[in-house]
């Protein structure tokens, strides 16, 4: 039978039957997606992109050897080749006694109404939104153009099957609007952007993106360096989420197993200021990091990673948990093209007691843009040096726009240099992390 006549479950069954016939166990991830993407320029639609994709990613375990393979071709020959490649790849790899296919035969499915709501929206409405964002921004004072902008509507589906009988399905929808504007005033210029995501297209608010992008551009137009010294620093939500993201491997059981996580031997130790509490909260349905189960089909739950400054746990899949003699924390990650790893789902930092006026007292630097996040950081040592822009502030007022500076230090040391934590949490633009403002003291700024 040709695979074109089979549905996804039948193809998965065929693949996993071949795996088991070869004396192996395995799991298969099938990712499918459809996207409409629109971009505008000079009042006209510049790009209209429609796409549909499907990819199969197989992991096999035979005699303790693990192999992976993937394919975007899904005819019968391609699927047979997929199994053969994964088994062949496994034959070269070391025995990994801790990695197994979990004895999980559950049928799992996320709530489509929650994660993948439907609505009647015409393509014309989407085009009009893309045009409106570009046009309304482009006609604002000092805006030279809006070179990067767009509207997207993406439907994604992930289906996980295993030889143990796991059948897990999640569908999600994400609508996005974004814009980057270039403003000029004589010799001065600035380019900044912002975005918004929602599960319903009708909930996208173009004014939010337009106003935020324009405010960021105009605000930094007069930016200049400030004298080099150590300042108190408050990152805005986007920047703060990015910085914590760069060093997220500090929670990884995988990097600990591999011997490159500096927190490996610090579970139970104080690693941060006592007011810092960090959770991973995959079940917060308000966020786009929501996960009901992980890549092994393990149910997720809210995990306390750092409580009152003390490191409580690393995040694990079943293999890293087995290695450390503990239980999986429901953080298994795997894409169709990758091996089993771990990943945080949705980071949440608990709010503390400092209100806005306390947090913003005296002189501090508000950092609103960071550059070189990955190239400028060493997650193993904690050292970082990023390009930055923002505002020098006094008592909550922005007194000077700042550009052309670097912010540098050691992230792991900085966790102990927290002077205040705000009492209100904020989502980042992608809605994948929820954090209050944190004021770090004594941060090296070069201007």
């Amino acid at each position, binding site marked *: 039978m040709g695979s074109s006549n089979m549905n996804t479950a039948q193809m998965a069954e065929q693949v996993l039957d071949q795996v088991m016939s070869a004396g192996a166990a395995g799991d298969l991830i099938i990712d499918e997606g459809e996207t409409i993407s629109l971009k505008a320029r000079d009042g*006209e*639609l*510049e*790009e*209209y*992109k*429609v*796409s*549909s*994709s499907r990819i199969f990613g197989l992991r096999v375990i035979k005699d303790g050897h693990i*192999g*992976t393979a*993937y*394919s*975007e*071709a899904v005819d019968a020959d391609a699927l047979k080749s997929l199994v053969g*490649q994964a088994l062949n*790849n496994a034959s*070269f*790899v070391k025995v990994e006694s801790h990695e197994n296919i979990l004895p999980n035969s559950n049928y799992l499915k996320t709530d489509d109404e929650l994660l993948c709501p439907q609505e009647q929206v015409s393509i014309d409405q989407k*085009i009009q939104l893309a045009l409106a964002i570009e046009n309304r921004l482009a006609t604002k004072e000092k805006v*030279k*153009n809006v*070179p990067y902008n767009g509207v997207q509507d993406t439907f994604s589906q992930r289906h996980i099957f295993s030889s143990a009988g796991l059948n897990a399905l999640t569908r999600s929808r994400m609508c996005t609007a974004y814009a*980057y504007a*270039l403003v000029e005033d004589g010799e001065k*210029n*600035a*380019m900044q952007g912002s975005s918004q995501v929602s599960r319903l297209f009708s909930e996208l608010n173009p004014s939010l993106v337009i106003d935020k992008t324009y405010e960021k551009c105009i605000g930094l137009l007069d930016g200049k360096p400030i004298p*080099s010294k150590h300042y108190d620093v408050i990152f805005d939500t986007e920047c703060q989420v990015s910085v914590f993201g760069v060093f997220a491997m500090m929670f990884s059981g995988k990097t600990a197993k*591999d*011997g*490159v996580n500096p927190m490996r031997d610090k579970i139970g130790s104080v690693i941060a200021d006592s007011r810092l509490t960090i959770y991973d909260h995959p079940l917060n349905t308000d966020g786009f990091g929501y996960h009901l189960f992980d890549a092994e089909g393990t149910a997720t739950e809210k995990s306390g990673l750092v409580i009152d400054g003390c490191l409580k746990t690393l995040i694990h899949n079943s293999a890293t948990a087995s290695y450390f003699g503990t239980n999986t924390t429901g953080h298994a990650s795997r894409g169709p*093209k990758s*091996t089993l790893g771990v990943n945080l789902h949705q980071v949440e930092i608990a709010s503390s007691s400092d209100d806005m006026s306390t947090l913003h007292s005296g002189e501090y630097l508000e950092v609103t843009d960071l*550059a*070189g*996040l*990955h*190239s*400028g*950081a*060493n997650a*193993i*040592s904690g*050292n*970082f*040096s*990023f*390009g930055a822009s923002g505002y020098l502030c006094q008592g909550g007022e922005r007194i000077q726009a700042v*550009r*052309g*500076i*670097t*912010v*540098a*230090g*050691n992230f792991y040391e900085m966790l102990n240099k927290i002077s205040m934590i705000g009492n209100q949490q904020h989502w980042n633009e992608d809605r994948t992390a929820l954090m209050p403002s944190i004021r770090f003291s004594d941060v090296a700024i*070069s*201007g």
Partner: protein
Amino acid sequence: MLNSQTAESVIDHALSLGADFAELFIEKNETNVVSTLSTEVQSVESGINFGIGLRLVYGNKVLYGYTNKTDKDELFRIASVLAAKDLRDPVSCTKSFNFNQMTDIHPAQKILSVDAEIESKVAYLMSADRAARAAGEKISQTRGSCMQREQRVEIYNSDGLHANDRRHYIRAHLTAIASDGGEQATGSWNDGGLLGWEIESSINPQQTGEAAARQALVNLTARPCPSGRMPVIIGNGFGGVIFHEACGHLLETTSVAKKASVFHDQMGEMIASSIVNAVDDGTMTNEWGSINIDDEGMATQRTQLIKDGQLTNFLVDRIGAQQTGFARSGSGRRESYKFAPASRMRNTFIEPGDAKLDVMIASIDKGIYASHMGGGSVQPGTGEFNFAVTEGYYIENGKIQYPVKAATLISTGPKVLKEISMIGQDFSLACGMCGSISGSVPTTVGQATLKVDDILVGGNA
């Protein structure tokens, strides 16, 4: 990969919907990655990507869709969906396909579709690991990888073009980790090219391991970097990433046409120091950023971007040519069938000069020698860039004093081009991946060691 009758009927259909231009890009891409962690094979991953991208152009508007399916009905469906808002009477008709068999100027021998050579790659990485560990007791771990890819592309368009190409990519990488108590530092080495595993004969595992270990051990002893404005010597090879990011992207019509580049109206102007000559060249034999044809089917070429400081050419794809009036340069590239092509760099470098490193160092009272650069980012509209130094040294009184860590270089592309005062003789190239509007494509950067008179160095000393 797609028969010409199907291609012709799809393109005919697209033109019948009123498109000015229609193009099919068919791609099959096989990949194999061997990864090691110290003395063990961590994983072997392989796979096949396959799909077809369909581009319709109405005026300056680009409509793009893709699918994993090859049947005519699906391709017709995509064309119809794309054109639904732009339907009009036909304005052009398909010319007969003229198959253009390009000469392969980047021959490869040990190719993936014949043998992945996994045992040989494992042996190479294991030898490199042993060499790294032998370089010092403080080398605690290595991570190695060999990636091999074979990309077949076939392009049809309504101008009658039918072209294909087979590209063989190979890249090897080793990271060494040095540990001393609670301190850890890394060093890395990598090389690659548009060829097969025969690259093995030119990448000595002993040198691979020693180079990664040496850098890790230097960084283990590095001190916090002084900060402020100062002269900086930027090392050869991957040091060219600054020109690539801070200037090269601004010369792509992708940003020029949108006036999102500070250089968009400066053709023929002096945009750099008069000692600067810069080139983007897709024809360099077996180099990582080379191609035979671009992803629009045009033979690649060598493009002189800057001559004696004067801007002489942009990098131009089909749409860029249409929008700016500059001639195409064989620079239309894309990561895969999932992206419409855009003007992109290939092998981009500053040509060598005649200065010597010791003279450059001797000319500096207080400054930095950034012998190895890491990645960074650039804001195309303003030219502001930020790059990490992965191996650097503090210079005082004309002499190297000590290694520094966590250093970052900040400036703008236009400013740094004019601040280049000395260019050395030790020209070399280095490979990397470049991400932009049409995805991530292999590119080479390069230069000889050069001196920039004034740049902001970020550090935490």
